[in-house]
């Protein structure tokens, strides 16, 4: 669990009010947390931060979550980084199933707090 304790998380969403509770939950687990409010901002932070997990909103203005994920896969030194998509239900969920660059998991909004913690923990453990 020591490994978990030291994990770095990047949260990406254009809605600040969604990031507030997630940040709180992750910090409560003792993770290091940083936030980005758009895909571009996330890509700016990533190379220097090298997080273990990126919690990524799919529907964002400008660059969407899938595009950000694709670019993450091309960045050097981020092979271990796991991506957790946060999607709305419906059509987006279907697109999620068709999307496979390997290793991603997803959660639908609105999520359950404990479930989110659990999934992040699992990803970190088996990543």
């Amino acid at each position: 669990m020591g490994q978990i304790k030291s994990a770095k998380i990047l949260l990406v969403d254009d809605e600040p009010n969604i990031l507030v509770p997630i940040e709180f939950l992750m910090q409560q687990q003792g993770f290091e947390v940083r936030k980005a409010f758009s895909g571009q901002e996330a890509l700016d932070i990533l190379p220097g931060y090298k997080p273990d997990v990126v919690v990524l909103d799919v529907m964002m203005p400008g660059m969407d979550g899938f595009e950000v994920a694709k670019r993450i896969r091309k960045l050097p030194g981020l092979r271990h980084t796991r991506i957790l998509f946060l999607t709305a239900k419906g059509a987006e969920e279907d697109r999620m199933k068709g999307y496979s660059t390997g290793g991603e998991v997803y959660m639908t909004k609105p999520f359950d707090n404990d479930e989110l913690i659990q999934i992040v923990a699992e990803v970190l453990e088996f990543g």
Partner: protein
Amino acid sequence: MSPLLIILVLTGYVGLLFLIAYYADQRAARGASLVKNPLIYALSLAVYCTAWTFYGSVGRAAESGIGFLPIYLGPVLFALLWWIVLRKIILISKSQRITSIVDFLSSRYGKSTWLGVLGTIVVVVGIIPYISIQLKAITFSLQHLTHGGKVPGQVWENLPVYLDPGLFVAVALALFSILFGARNLDPNERHEGLVAAIAFESIFKLAVFLTVGLFVTFGLYDGFGDLFRQAWQFEDIHALLDFEHAGIDSMNWFWLMLLSLFAVLLLPRQFHLAVVENTSVDHIGRAAWLFPLYLLLINVFVLPIAFAGKMLIPPEMAEPDLFVVDLPLLNGQGFLALLAVLGGFSAGTGMVIVSTIALSIMISNNMVVPLLLRTSTVREGWVDDLSKRLLGIRRISIAIVLLVAYAYFKWIGQRYTLVSVGLISFAAVAQFAPAVFIGLYWKRATRMGAMVGLALGFLTWFYTLLLPTLAEVHFMGVHIVESGPWGISWLRPDALFGLKGMDNITHAAFWSLLLNTGGVVLVSLYSRQNTLEISQADLFVEIYKYQTGSIDYDVMRRQATLQDVTLLLNRFLGEHRANTLLGSYSRTFSKDLSKETMADADLINYAETHLAGAIGAASAKLIMRTIAKEDPISLEEMFRILEQTQEFIRYSRELEHKSAELQQTTRQLRQANEQLKELDLLKADFITTVTHELRTPITSIKALSKILQENPDLPTQQRREFLGILVSESERISRLINQVLDLERTSVENAEWKIEPVELTQLIRHSSAGFRQQLEEKQIQLHLDLPDENVWVSASVDPLTQVFVNLLSNALKFCEAGKGVIHIGLDSGKDQVVAFVKDNGFGIDPKDQQTIFGQFVQVSNNERGKPTGSGLGLFISKRIVERYGGRIWVESVPGEGATFFISLDASAPA
């Protein structure tokens, strides 16, 4: 008077006729026709006035006063109908190349051979008495002239036949007729020379009759007054002017008028000149009053001459039928008498020549040729030129007809007056009337009906009129006439079925026409038409339809080799005329026949119609059948289609109409469906977007409230932060719900959404009042640049208020706190009012200026993050404004602010 002089004068007269005919033919060949005008046409119709009129009217008048008149009144009345009936017959005959009245009948009823044969027999038998009275009149007039009046002892009648001048007259007339009408074959049976000669004869006989009349009235008496005053003294003449004493009743007049009405069109020579020789239907109009005028003129002196004859000629010398000759003769006017004989000769020859030509055409075209063609031996012997053979048939026919007429005159006719014999012929020809006139207007009249009707009428005529004249000269027992065959009195020819009290003509006309008409109608109702009958009936009855060329008459799907067709035309028309016809065909239809080996249906039809002109429709059909192959099944089908053409056209028009309607409906349905699909798509889109928009605040509310619940000991500051987010996200949800409801309101076709005059300045002030607090908080200035007077627009208060609220709140969002300035103003035009909301905020990128009016479109950028709002405000505003027929748009320079414009229709004040 010397017979030699008379013969010289007559020969000279005939020579003059030939000169006139020759001249007219020459003129026609040069294209400068003499006869193509209504006057000549009307004069040629006056061939109606024969020796019967010239001599017989006076004779009839001497017997029964004005009893001579109905024969002329009938045609005069009928002339009123010429434009309808005669015109139709002419148009049909032109299009079908009809050559005679019998040909007309045969063509109408499916080009029937047997109807043609029957018709020819009826005409020939029926006309023989009529021709015989011409011979009689001419012969007797010559006899009076040479012997100085009526000579007791009947000199010529006792001569043997071979010395009888009557026979010589007959032979001479046969020769004239052949020379006039059977010299060559014309495919149209048109003889301009003949018509010109007949027209001349009409002028001549009228002039002579008027001259004699003037001589009698003003030479022998002192005018009409004197003549009638003297006549009044005589008991028997006095009686003639009394209807009852003269034995005239209205029944008799009616039937005589009816018979003459039919005769003026159906007599072979009348039909020939009125229809076959007609050059233009337009001539009917003037002929319809010129011809009656002629009849009037030629009747003016009938009564004076008749009365004068009765007064001046002693009874033992009196021959009323020849008063016209005897009056000048017995009063020392030999030359005038000669002129009178010449006038009568003119009237008689005109009738005989045209009648025999017309009869010879019928005999050859409708009887002999079809019958010959039915026997295979003749068909195989076609090698020689048939056109010569055809002419031979005609010449022989003419000779036979005149000889038979002579025989009738010699043994029967001379016992009767001219008029009473002439009426026998009228009654015979009237038998054509039912089949012709009914067939002209009733398509269902069948060949069988026409055959039965004509046969019944003819037999009745023969039995009631001709038989008694034969019986009287002991051709058979007189007892048949007196007491009926086998003593059955109700079969007596003059009182059929016990009907008595009528004169013989009225009696015969009544029964024959009744049985004839009944036969045509009843048998037609119970018999079926074959396909050719159906098509011919249609062509006749609907001639005006075909005349306009609206229907393509191409039912004969026949094929023959071009060589056969050419050969056929050569044989019947001669090589020269055949070449001319084929040349004109290839020019008219621009077909190069030299390259063809097969003749198509068009050419075969063309050849058949022209052959029909030479040999009659029935013969032409038969001949064509020998060389052309036709498919009976398809032919039959074509005829059925033809019969139903009218129905088909109407039906197909209906179908067309229906299908156009269907297409229209389909288009509308498709459009509606597209709209529905679009709407469906929009709805699905909309729901996805709304749920997404809802999910975001719910997600954060759910997560934060759980955190608050599970962590009661959170630091106050953090707790307050979380609670603040909860409040604002809840507000976001309620705002979203409100706007979705707004949207629903604008999209539903709501009757309560009343468009009415709305005062705009007041509305803008109200709308902006609610923003005072927000404006103060963000320190943004709002300027209302509104006019003092009222501005009225067509809208409704609440929705339009919402539009301004939306625009104002947008402007607020985009303005920087402390620096923002917002202007609201309006520009009031005559028809349009434009209001604007202007801010000095971030402005809108040009690429976004169109899309911002879509639903859930929010403009944001990375620096500012997301603006608050649902993305529905402008969408809703646009729908509201468009609902009023107005427009909303934006002008903006990024960084300098944006101006939203709304244009609305100006309205009269409420």
